[in-house]
């Protein structure tokens, strides 16, 4: 640490160059994010989707389960902007409602993955030795698990009991969120661990340790905030992965029950009527695609903004 102390305690600090206004780290990140044009466009589109899903059902008040056999499998029209399904239910209303579930699952599963991943990664990164080795072996083991078959297995085994305990909707929601999150935390854990390995040797951490900070305080106040950038990027991508996972489960007929029309579930119902009513499959599929695409682009922009070392 030689050379980093001032020659004398009374030496005046060099005058700060006052020409540029101070930019906060988040302002700097926003400046870099804006440079990624597609990411900005995606952010706008994604915001529109989220707002539509949140506020849409308030505006478009057609019930999602109103059966009308005289309006079966109709294409888009003024009365039904996205057409109807085989029971004559309005697809726009169903998609707005289902979008809420799909997005909620995506964000909740991401939270589970990030919390578990950060926990495992921090513990491994700060403790070294045997704990680190065991946790990383566990992480590698989970990485080599075939997640979809296991998702299906867990849902098959636990669906009925949970439904009996907390009701069909909440039960399947908790189960799907927990399982998807439980199979997505590994990349975050590895990232956090790698960040910890480089950060814990840095001077500011050493300084804090020298001042007598306890290990939890070191982790919470000094290391974690600095490891946040890559975690935010990974979290964004995790939302997309979770939405795809939920849609896949519902598409296989093993996700939400039929009365909860998530986007994947609508696709599942639509796939046998592709030749009569292609719109029925195209709209929910397009919604999943657009959401995932925009989230991925936003993640890409965030990587430029928050993780400057990885910019190519």
């Amino acid at each position, binding site marked *: 640490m030689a050379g980093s102390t001032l020659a004398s305690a009374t030496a005046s600090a060099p005058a700060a160059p006052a020409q540029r206004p101070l930019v906060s780290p988040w302002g700097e990140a926003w400046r870099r994010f804006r440079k990624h044009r597609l990411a900005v466009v995606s952010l706008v589109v994604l915001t529109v989707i989220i707002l539509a899903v949140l506020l849409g059902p308030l505006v478009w008040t057609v019930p999602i389960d109103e059966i009308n056999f005289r309006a079966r499998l109709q294409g888009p029209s003024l009365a039904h902007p996205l057409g109807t399904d085989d029971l004559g239910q309005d697809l726009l209303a169903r998609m707005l409602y289902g979008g809420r579930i799909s997005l909620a699952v995506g964000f909740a599963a991401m939270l589970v993955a990030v919390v578990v991943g950060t926990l495992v990664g921090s513990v491994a990164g700060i403790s070294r030795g045997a704990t680190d080795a065991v946790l990383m072996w566990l992480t590698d*083991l989970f990485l*080599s*698990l075939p997640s*979809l*078959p296991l998702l299906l*297995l867990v849902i098959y085994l636990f669906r*009925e009991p949970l439904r009996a305990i907390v009701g069909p909707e909440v039960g399947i929601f908790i189960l799907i969120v927990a399982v998807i999150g439980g199979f997505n935390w590994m990349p975050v854990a590895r990232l956090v661990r790698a960040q910890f390995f480089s950060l814990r040797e840095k001077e500011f951490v050493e300084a804090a340790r020298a001042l007598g900070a306890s290990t939890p305080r070191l982790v919470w106040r000094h290391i974690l905030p600095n490891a946040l950038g890559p975690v935010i990027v990974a979290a964004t991508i995790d939302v997309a992965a979770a939405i795809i996972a939920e*849609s896949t489960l519902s598409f296989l007929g093993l996700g939400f029950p039929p009365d909860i029309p998530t986007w994947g579930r609508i696709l599942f119902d639509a796939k046998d009527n592709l030749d009569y009513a292609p719109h029925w499959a195209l709209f929910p599929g397009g919604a999943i*695609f657009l959401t995932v695409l925009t989230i*991925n682009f936003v993640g890409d922009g965030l990587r430029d903004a928050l993780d400057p070392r990885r910019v190519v």
Partner: protein
Amino acid sequence: MTQYLIRRLLIAVPSLLGISVILFTVLALAPGDPFEELATNPAVPPEVRMQLRASLGLDDPIHVRYIAWLTAMLRGEWGFSFISRIDVDRLILQRLPTTLLVIGSSQVVALMIALPVGVLAATRPYSLFDKIANTLAFLGFSLPTFFTGLLFILFFSIYLDWLPFVYRSQIDATGWRWVWEHIRQAIMPVMVLGLFQGAAWTRFVRSAVLDVIRLDYVTTARAKGLEERVVINRHVVRNALIPVVTLVALQMPTVFGGAIVTEQIFRVPGIGSLLISAILANDTPVIMAVTFVFSCLVIFFNLLADILYGWLDPRISYS
């Protein structure tokens, strides 16, 4: 080389054991009792039920049950399918070749897309080609396989009526026609999986090649007067492939997930669709066995990646 192989195989054993522990724990933790039917049947007195449980070892402590289950699995006693009425291992062996064929050819397709496109994009960074390739790759891996599958069916089977959308294992034709029919029905599932993987790999290849191409030894190779083609193929790509192999191995679980979905959409009679139908029919022995087979396949491909890694990177010693 043999020693290296043996060491890699030995490292795979704990992973397999770990997976078997996870599988068994999930099964053991799951509520529900195999004797539920007997319990509700008034003709069976409770004492008989208890005796039956004890004789089947259901009341043993969990580690004893685990070891019993594991030895049975290792001996090839995988149980009996409730639905198909044949042994589970025979059922899986019937279905496995189709799955491996579809996955294998889709990986070849993915490689044939990702390698040239990724290398070309990286040698001309930020050019028009690079931008288009990058955007397409982004679109490609944001399109979930179940949606691409439906789009393919909609376009190629319903709109153009070129390709059949139901995979048939029995085709009554002979000679070249038989081969052609098989290829025709495999095109869509293979392409759906291949394009999805290809899109993801293109990005891996591009960034790996970009990392390597700026290194000094590449400049040296060019300065020696080597042709650009030789520089790229022999000096750049080989080294760039090393990180790509690792990433591809990490992608394996995703590949198998995609395979399950594609098999379900196109009704390919592989182990993926077997898993789904077994779940829908509550056929527990089949579900457990297929999940275990998928885990073994992932580990096997990871092993393969390790061996490839050793071949690509001479710095890794085999001893």
